[in-house]
């Protein structure tokens, strides 16, 4: 029988190509496991990838190609928020389900939501609500941010500020914020600026290679010796931690959408082991998301008994699956998975992986940090 084809749209070239690669790793593991145990509906699973180049226009053409030319039954993917924003509105046209595994913009399961679009990963709103809960317990009162100068950085700060002032009205959100250009490579001016200011709490949403540069430059500047509460919103991403090694300071708050050491269940144990065996290092959050997405399709297709796009999309809605990060439910009404971010404090070096460990790990409950359906603006 013909295999089931699933299309993956990720960044496969340029600076952020590493994220596409992580997703591919997670997907590979899932696909191999599924195929080894008989596939989906008795059919083997086959992946077809397209490079989004991080551009909405490219991703949209890629999706059309995957659906109309490659004949895929379902789509996974999307790393960048801009790509997601552009692509999601075209999904009803394609009549195939899409599970977003990485892009974090709230809108795609908010005001842009539609019946074909799902997200299995944590979004900015969820993560920032958790961040606010972490910040609530800290002594800092003057908060500012350092984030990339595009939607993600600005949105993170907005959501964080809103939640934090709700639960802790006496904090001060500084008007002096810092948004270095994405890919700027030099963050020293912004680091100096924060050090010269009255801030005692900083939300840092810089990520990826930029974050690596940021941390190293901050070390040079003595930034971490100052008495500041630091929240790194994507700080516990394994690629960043392994690049930095012990240059990542201890005792700062790091978040990730999935911490490999945080879940004590069989699926996670199996997943982490398989990943470490295959790729020689701990899995990153977006490898986990992509891994889980394939299993989500398996369950949805088997529930629907078909690979028909509309039917599969329908059965995804409200569905729960067991994933490395526990039971994951796509909430009816906005199709956002109820998953909680992981926040912890950077601790001693991990004996095997050469990265910082997370101590005092807090795994937030997905429901607790999610916006209500009314707040999302999604009308399904």
């Amino acid at each position, binding site marked *: 029988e013909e295999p089931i084809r699933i299309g993956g749209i990720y960044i496969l*070239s*340029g*600076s*952020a*190509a*590493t994220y*596409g*690669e992580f997703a591919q790793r997670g997907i590979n593991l899932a696909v191999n496991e599924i195929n080894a145990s008989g596939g989906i509906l008795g059919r083997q699973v086959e992946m077809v990838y397209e490079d989004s180049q991080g551009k909405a226009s490219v991703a949209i053409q890629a999706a059309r190609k995957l659906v109309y030319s490659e004949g895929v039954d379902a789509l996974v993917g999307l790393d960048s928020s801009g790509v997601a924003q552009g692509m999601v509105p075209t999904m009803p046209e394609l009549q195939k389900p899409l599970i977003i595994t990485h892009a974090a913009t709230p809108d795609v399961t908010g005001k842009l939501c539609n019946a074909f679009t799902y997200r299995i990963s944590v979004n900015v709103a969820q993560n920032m609500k958790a961040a606010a809960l972490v910040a609530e317990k800290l002594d800092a009162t003057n908060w500012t941010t350092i984030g990339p*100068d595009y939607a993600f950085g600005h949105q993170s700060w907005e959501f964080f500020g809103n939640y934090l002032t709700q639960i802790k009205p006496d904090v001060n959100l500084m008007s002096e*914020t*810092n*948004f*270095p*250009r994405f*890919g*700027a*490579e*030099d963050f*020293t*001016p*912004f680091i*100096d*600026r924060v050090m*010269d200011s009255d801030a005692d709490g900083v939300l840092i949403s810089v990520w*990826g*290679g*930029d974050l*690596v*540069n940021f941390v*190293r430059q901050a070390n*040079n500047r*003595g930034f971490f010796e100052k008495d500041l509460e630091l929240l790194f919103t994507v700080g516990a991403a394994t*690629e*960043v931690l*392994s*690049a*930095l*090694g012990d*240059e990542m300071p201890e005792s700062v708050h790091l978040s990730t959408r999935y911490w490999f050491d945080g879940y004590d269940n069989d699926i996670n144990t199996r997943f982490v082991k398989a990943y470490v065996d295959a790729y020689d290092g701990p899995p990153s959050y977006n490898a986990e998301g992509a891994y889980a997405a394939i299993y989500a399709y398996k369950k949805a297709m088997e529930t629907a008994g078909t690979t028909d796009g509309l039917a599969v999309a329908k059965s995804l809605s409200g569905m729960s699956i067991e994933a490395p990060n526990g039971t994951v439910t796509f909430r009816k009404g906005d199709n956002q998975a109820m998953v909680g971010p992981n926040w912890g404090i950077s601790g001693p070096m991990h004996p095997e992986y050469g990265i910082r460990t997370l101590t005092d790990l807090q795994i937030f409950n997905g429901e607790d940090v999610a916006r209500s359906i009314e707040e999302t603006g999604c009308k399904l």
Partner: protein
Amino acid sequence: MSGIGSALLNSLDIGLLLFIIAVGLNIVFGVLNIINFAHGALYMLGAYLAFTLINIVGMPFWAALLLAPLGVAILAVLIDRFLLRYIYSRDIADSLLLTFALLLIINESVRMIWGSGIQVVQPPQLLAGSMDIMGSSIPTYSLFVIVMGLALLAGLWLLFNRTRIGRIMRAAALDRDMAEVLCINTRLVVTGVFAFGAWLAAVGGVIAAPMRALDPGMGDKIIIESFIVVVIGGLGSFPGALLGAIILGLIHGFGGRYFPEVNMLLPFLGMALVLLFKPNGIMGKGAAA
């Protein structure tokens, strides 16, 4: 350290790194009349080679500084012999297209060889840490970058203005046929200049490696910056390239801090203003526009 002082110093160190990278672009353009889009890719290659030599092979930084640029220069000789030689006599558009193709090839090869992960190189022991100068602590590596930049500037200036080789390069650039009949082996000059430009790019890459995280998009990040540097300072002028690099460093250093809403615009605004009022760049000379 006071805000302005440290911002100044920081601008200087970014500026000099940019200078080292951009000056090769400047030379290749000035002598060969080629806009080398692959210059950033060669810079990246220098950085990745350094990464391999230092982190994998375990060589000291200084050996990498010597060897990695040499390797890139050798690659450049091959590129010149097998690809560029076909298009030197054609107009600038062809070289644009070919070096763009090269950029694609090198970028992808780097991704295939080194993977797309983020890599980090440590500075050598000698240059790690900070030094106290006038009561403020300055990363030793920044000083090293500044010294390297200035040393290269001096060397290049001497080479081009005080040696016959420099004049020969300029002559070959102006009129290749005429240079040929005056006993100048222009093929050799051309190959040499291209390899030299690549060498400079790679030196920039090695020097950048301990300061910048390595990823397969790092070349693309630098190429437009290099254009800006070259244009602001003036095509063909080394002190100009230095000035352009420092100005761009200042724009980045102060723009982000004091005009965050328009910081992306500023470098380009600066470049446009320079071109409008001094089309040949601040220190450029040569034919009027």
